[in-house]
């Protein structure tokens, strides 16, 4: 029997999203539910991502399941040249579910096609990281009470930031208005803007978010990375334009929340951390419940 897998955020419909968010809300009330008792889950991390791995492994343990796997390619047979195909074929004989992170893009989709059991993609290179997007949705719904008709600000690197692309695709089901703020060189790719136009979703694009920040319900910050700029002067000019500080939040809506996929560098000033509108630490905690919900959904046990 072919398992159901979660590889890309667009594998799921609006109904699937809502089902997972409801289930996650239930896990938030009661995280210890022995739904995975007697089950073994493999976490195969071909590149290190300690936060994501621990979040998934905690989710499994809180569900009463057991975890095997590796978090370091050097200690596994991968360095001896074993193909992904062989590793997946073999490990899928041992366990009930594979959660994998791999530097090659498309690796998780491929794994889901050769495996008889379910695969959860915990990141395939710069491509997809659907549990991040679902925890973003969860955080937005939890803080706003709804996902519908929100003004979503996306600030920073909108060109290479996969989290903003996936969030855009997921939020497109809920009639948002997007506000894109980025350096000229890191604009939202035209493919996504075409998609929004076709769906009749409003968006505004600009370089300075401060004058309109009072419109925001959600402020989603991303890192502007130095290595994305060919010209170091351009980086120096741009880096401080996309830093959020506490004073900027003074006249914002009372319901506004600041999100960030973490880790941050300097794009959110430390003086924001104690503002009740800062939500990025809670956002990370929500990841646990959302991952519990995702695991149960792909295994069809809740």
């Amino acid at each position, binding site marked *: 029997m072919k398992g159901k897998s979660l590889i890309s955020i667009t594998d799921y419909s609006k109904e699937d999203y809502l089902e997972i968010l409801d289930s996650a809300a239930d896990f938030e009330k009661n995280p210890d539910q022995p739904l995975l008792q007697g089950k073994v889950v493999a976490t195969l991390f071909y590149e290190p991502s300690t936060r994501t791995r621990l979040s998934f492994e905690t989710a499994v343990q809180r569900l009463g399941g057991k975890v095997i796997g590796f978090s370091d390619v050097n200690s596994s047979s991968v360095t001896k040249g074993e193909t992904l195909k062989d590793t997946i074929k073999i490990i899928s004989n041992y366990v009930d579910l594979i959660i994998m992170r791999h530097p090659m*893009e498309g690796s998780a989709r491929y794994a889901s096609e050769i495996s008889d059991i379910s695969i959860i993609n915990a990141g395939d290179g710069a491509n*997809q990281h659907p549990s991040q997007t679902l925890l973003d949705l969860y955080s937005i719904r939890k803080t706003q009470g709804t996902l519908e008709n929100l003004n979503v600000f996306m600030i920073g690197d909108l060109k290479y930031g996969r989290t903003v692309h996936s969030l855009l695709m997921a939020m497109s089901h809920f009639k948002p208005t997007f506000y894109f703020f980025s350096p000229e060189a890191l604009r939202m790719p035209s493919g996504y803007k075409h998609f929004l136009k076709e769906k009749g979703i409003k968006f505004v694009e600009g370089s300075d978010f401060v004058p309109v920040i009072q419109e925001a319900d959600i402020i989603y910050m991303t890192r502007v990375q130095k290595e994305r700029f060919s010209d170091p002067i351009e980086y120096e000019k741009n880096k401080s334009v996309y830093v959020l500080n506490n004073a900027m939040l003074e006249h914002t809506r009372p319901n506004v929340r600041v999100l960030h996929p973490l880790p941050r560098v300097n794009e959110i000033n430390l003086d924001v951390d104690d503002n009740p509108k800062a939500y990025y630490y809670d956002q990370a905690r929500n990841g646990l419940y959302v991952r519990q919900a995702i695991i149960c959904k792909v295994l069809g046990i809740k």
Partner: protein
Amino acid sequence: MSTIKNFSQMTVNAIREGTVIDHIPPHNLFKVISILGLNGINNQITFGTNLESRRMGKKAIIKITDKFFTDDEINKIAMVAPQAKLNTIRNYKVVEKREVQVPDTVTGIVRCLNPKCITNNEKVTTCFNVLSKTEVTLRCHYCEQVMEADEIRIL
């Protein structure tokens, strides 16, 4: 010039039973031959290339005796010869003219341009979803990278 014209006519006319594929871009002639697997069959095959074409400037043409193609087979060449025309010949007469249609998915013909794609790093048959058929745009089924027409490379 007239010899070229004659050759072109001859290639269409001289075949009794079979298929003539016309309007192939000359630089992709051998890719068409390879995609259709013509180098591995025993049928009589003639081709001409750099023939004059009012529509394309230069074109190539292939005629294959006693060979007929299904739509699925012939649509594979859409990536390299989107304007190709297929003439089915029975008893020296063109009994059917078909145009190549860009399929909804392209399997195993095109290489993904993303060097970090799993298909470029492990033995995986490539697969692309066709986003646009007019200006052919493909999205890799695996890494989800989008390729525009001028970025498409044949394996």
